[in-house]
């Protein structure tokens, strides 16, 4: 039983990081409505939203199995409070931090039409911190002895990094024009 939980925890963990990376890439592609237009934008946006909810399901499975199994000692308190785990305090803590950010991002997204747009946006920006935390957590803990799992996690890192690099380097007429206008004398 314990063994099953251990394997479940690995599997749901790797599924979570793959989905998280997919959601990140879709979000990056959508940010500022740069690439997809028209109906395609709607599809990309819907996938971003629904895959993130799917990811949460796997993540809950990952956390509960990791706590329930007894090979290593992780308490329920480590679900939400970072750096409290007896086992691999730092690396588990990074995962907990990512979960905390995810909770904030999720709650603000569900309440998006009830809170100021700026509040939603600034919280949503934290996703860019969440993803590398989750990635580091995954590489350090779960994939050391399994080349396939490690390969998948590294591939996720490469895909996310490529998306981020594209986002920061591509020209963006809206942003560029605003910057040019703002550079003038306005006060």
């Amino acid at each position, binding site marked *: 039983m314990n063994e099953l939980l251990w394997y479940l925890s690995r599997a749901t963990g790797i599924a979570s990081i793959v989905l998280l990376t997919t959601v990140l890439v879709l979000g990056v592609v959508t940010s500022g409505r740069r690439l997809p237009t028209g109906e395609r934008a709607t599809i990309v946006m819907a996938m971003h939203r629904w895959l993130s909810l799917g990811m949460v399901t796997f993540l809950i499975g990952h956390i509960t199995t990791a706590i329930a199994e007894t090979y290593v000692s992780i308490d329920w308190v480590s679900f939400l409070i970072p750096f409290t785990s007896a086992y691999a305090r730092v690396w588990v803590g990074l995962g907990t931090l990512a979960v905390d950010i995810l909770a904030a991002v999720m709650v603000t997204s569900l309440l998006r039409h009830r809170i100021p747009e700026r509040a939603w946006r600034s919280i949503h920006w934290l996703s860019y911190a969440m993803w590398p935390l989750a990635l580091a957590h995954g590489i350090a803990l779960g994939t050391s002895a399994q080349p396939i799992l490690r390969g998948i996690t590294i591939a996720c890192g490469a895909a996310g990094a490529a998306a981020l690099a594209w986002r920061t380097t591509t020209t963006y*007429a*809206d942003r560029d024009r605003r910057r040019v*206008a703002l550079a003038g*004398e*306005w006060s």
Partner: protein
Amino acid sequence: MTLIDLLDQAGLTGRGGAAFRTAIKVRAAAEHGATLIVNACDGEIGATKDAWVVENQLDGLLGGARLVAGDHPIRVAAHRGSRAAALLAAAGVDVLEVPARYVSSEESALISLANGGLARPMTKRAPFVAGGRDARGRRIPPTVVLNAETVWRIAQIAEHGPDWFRRQGTALEPGPRLVTLTGAVAAPHVIETAAGARLGDLFGAAGGLLDAGLVWVGGLAGVLIPAPEAARLLWSSTDLASYGGSIGSGVVWALDPAECPVAFVDHMLTYAAGESAGQCGPCMFGLPALAADWHDLAGARSGRAVDAADRLAARVALLPDRGACRYPDGIARFAASAARVLAGHLDQHARGTCPPVRTTRSLVNA
């Protein structure tokens, strides 16, 4: 009778260009305890009438402001480094120094600047006379902006009464008003007249037109009118409506006959595109696109002129009624009027045989 009743009876409208009923604004300002900003920026191209009021009617201006503001402090907005700003400062008036950008003297841009923001227009979810919030969500206290000439007229109405006011102008646009006559005139200056005056007579008062072929009425948001027609035309929004124009902020500009009008419009549209605050799509993308269309239209043998007229017409139809301020609406109106009036000239211009636009008749007595 209260001040608001007097203004209502007089039918005073804003002299800054929008021609909104002043009584409504003053009433709202009183209800919300709004702070008054007097706009003496002369933000329209060529306009000098606000400076004229500051220079010649400062007591009336400050008296009118006192009537509106009561005990509250008064600020007068003027372009930084302008003569009006210097005169106001010398008179001990609290001057709001505004960058000399076209959209910076727009009402909500002044309110933003006065509250520590940038002098860029804000979205008016509701009139700022009741207070509101800027784009960042910061609270903006109730503020009312009135044009310098409007404020001076308020003092005049309080002194002479609404009947005196209504004896001048037309029934729809009553009262005396200032006009800035500029461009290719013998003596550019500000004169006091009223709606319904003949444009030819106005130019006569300014020493006559110097062979101008075109008259530009209303500034950057205004329209071009062939000079022979303009000379006979009455200066009222009713009569100017047939050309798509209005009195606006009271600028009448005779185009320099030595300069090609197509190049002049090109210059002005390029300037207009550069003055966008870069906040709304129709403005920050639409205006440069409009300027580029005109440039293509005017560009001889470039090959891009082929569909430029269609692109311009489509763009002009797309721009109005969008964005935080009415800036693109005005520029689209100007571009449409230029395309209409200069249609013949554009054809020849594109072929490289730009005709001189000169009239030999004396337009003063046309």
